């Protein structure tokens, strides 16, 4: 917040354009933030980081820029039923425009994406695999390195939605090996309005622009234009400068604590949340139990028998000052697969404590008592 305030008060100026000292300072801070993001995910080159509005825009960028140019009738796009809408809908657009087909990986009885089914879906028709790293509903984690290995064998690209992993654990894009990876600032203690796409430089260099305008061009003529190199090619117009610099400050903050330390703490918190919540009568939690998985994110999507999750969320808010989410969490396909319309979700970050989990569980019990006595 201080960083944002300082930018807007002291050197609010456009980037990559002016030659005066304020513009130079803003450009330096903006590019400095890009380098911070690159280092945070161990990208080989800061030019592999494209600032976007959020992860959703980053996925749309890949869909429109790479997808429309590289997919055709008969090609297949593999996703899982547990993907966020932002990882599904852009590919539906691409499918409608190109004739490529979407193939979905279902769930196992442990309520995680079925890796065996995934392997079975891969073929020489598969051109891109779009998967989450950590599910925002199930809390489960996918083996991205293995997925990349299997996908590469059939010549398919891999796009990873890392929104739920980058803020919570060390993520190394070189180790993962995915072709594209996306994340959002607002989920990692940063400001809203900015996110990023990591793409391998050779792939980004081969991609057509997404949006047209200033910054992304080299020369403009009446009948054509030539385009800048990545990442500028994909950053048309004036970017969210203060917000990108703010994301850099958020990364400084997280790095100071240490992502491995955050991850270890959150694993413990995740187990505590799960075990505390499962002890509440008539509660059903979705996704694998912590004992049945190497990793369960510090979130629990759940339902209480005979009580609507929205009612629970409202009473928790109105009567206890506890904020949870209710609805489909931008995962309608997953909810239909689970046979439900909606769920409640409690999610934690490293700043939450076990005491807060206790407060939540106590408030939940009280809310359930209130609702079941009134109904």
């Amino acid at each position, binding site marked *: 917040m201080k960083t944002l305030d300082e930018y807007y008060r002291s050197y609010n100026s456009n980037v990559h354009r002016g030659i005066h000292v304020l513009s130079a300072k803003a450009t330096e801070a903006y590019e400095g933030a890009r380098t911070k993001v690159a280092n945070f995910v161990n990208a080989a080159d800061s030019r592999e980081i494209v600032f976007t509005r959020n992860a959703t825009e980053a996925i749309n960028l890949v869909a429109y820029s790479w997808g429309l140019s590289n997919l055709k009738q008969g090609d297949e796009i593999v996703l899982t039923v547990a993907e966020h809408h932002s990882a599904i809908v852009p590919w539906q657009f691409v499918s409608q425009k190109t004739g490529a087909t979407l193939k979905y990986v279902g769930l196992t009885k442990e309520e995680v994406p079925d890796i065996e089914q995934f392997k079975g879906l891969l073929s020489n028709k598969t051109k891109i695999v779009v998967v989450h790293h950590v599910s925002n509903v199930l809390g489960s984690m996918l083996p991205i390195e293995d997925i990349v290995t299997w996908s590469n064998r059939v010549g398919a690209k891999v796009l990873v939605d890392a929104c739920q992993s980058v803020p919570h654990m060390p993520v190394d894009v070189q180790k993962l090996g995915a072709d594209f990876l996306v994340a959002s600032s607002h989920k990692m203690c940063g400001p809203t309005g900015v996110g990023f796409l990591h793409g391998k430089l050779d792939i980004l260099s081969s991609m057509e622009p997404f949006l047209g305008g200033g910054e992304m061009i080299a020369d403009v003529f009446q009948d054509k234009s030539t385009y800048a190199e990545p990442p500028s090619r994909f950053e048309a117009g004036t970017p969210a400068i203060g917000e990108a610099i703010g994301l850099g400050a958020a990364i400084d903050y997280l790095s100071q604590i240490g992502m491995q330390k955050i991850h270890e703490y959150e694993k413990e918190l995740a187990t505590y949340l799960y075990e505390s919540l499962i002890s509440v009568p008539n509660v059903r939690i979705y996704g694998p139990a912590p004992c049945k998985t190497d990793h369960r994110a510090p979130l629990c999507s759940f339902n209480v028998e005979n009580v609507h999750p*929205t009612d629970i969320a409202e009473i928790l808010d109105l009567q206890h000052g506890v904020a949870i989410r209710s609805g489909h969490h931008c995962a309608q396909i997953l909810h239909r697969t689970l046979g439900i319309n909606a769920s409640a979700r409690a999610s934690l970050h490293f700043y939450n404590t076990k005491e807060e989990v206790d407060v939540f569980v106590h408030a939940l019990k009280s809310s359930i008592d209130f609702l079941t006595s009134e109904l």
Partner: protein
Amino acid sequence: MDVSSLAAALPSLVAPTMNLKPRLAFPLHPFSARGGGAHPRGSVAVGCAHSNVPPPLRRAADEEDQGEDADPRLRLHRLAEEFRAVPEAGRARRLLAYAAALPRLGDADRVAANRVMGCVAQVWLVGRCDGAGRMRFAADSDSELSRGYCACLISALDGAHPDEVLDVDPADLAPLGVAAGTRSRASTWHNVLVGMQKRARAAIAVREGRSPAGSFPSLVIGRDGTVRAQGSYAEAQVSSPPLQFCLFSFRCLD
């Protein structure tokens, strides 16, 4: 009009496809101070600022019959005053009490065509214009608090003329609660009001001899130039009985 009369009268106010069956035969007052009163799920403890029992919700048409001003905006204002008079802890109870008194829609009406889009719970809304030119609404939800919101909106707008329904501004909902009047997919208040106004707009269109179909939210334009609805919401709008949506083809210019 008391709640029992309201519940009994509702079946005659709606299209034959509706299958309104009040869950119980309500007494004159749903929740008497003596703690009685039939309730779908057992006894209810209800609190309000002035007594342990919330006043029954009254419809616009009932108040007009009694010579009172039935303007929906005024009724919403009165409802907001009523809510403000209740301690915050009691508001949820009041909503649940109103929810308990709201008749359930039958399965025939709990269908995709009647879904109010954008709510975090499933909400179904049925609306039509009766022979006297008034809008008649019924609603239901899988969330009890959402049923309470629906009951409140129905009490304000059921029996109002279509133009009066359209005159209600979402901002009129603001005094009812935080974000009540805000355009948001999470605001049941706002989304149900929008749904009611859509149906009022369709009724006005029919009255004026125009097609009731409004602007269409979700179209797919195929490579062959055909235009079709796609997605459960769009397809539901096409199949919605009050709307006669004309699909047309046009040539896509390459």
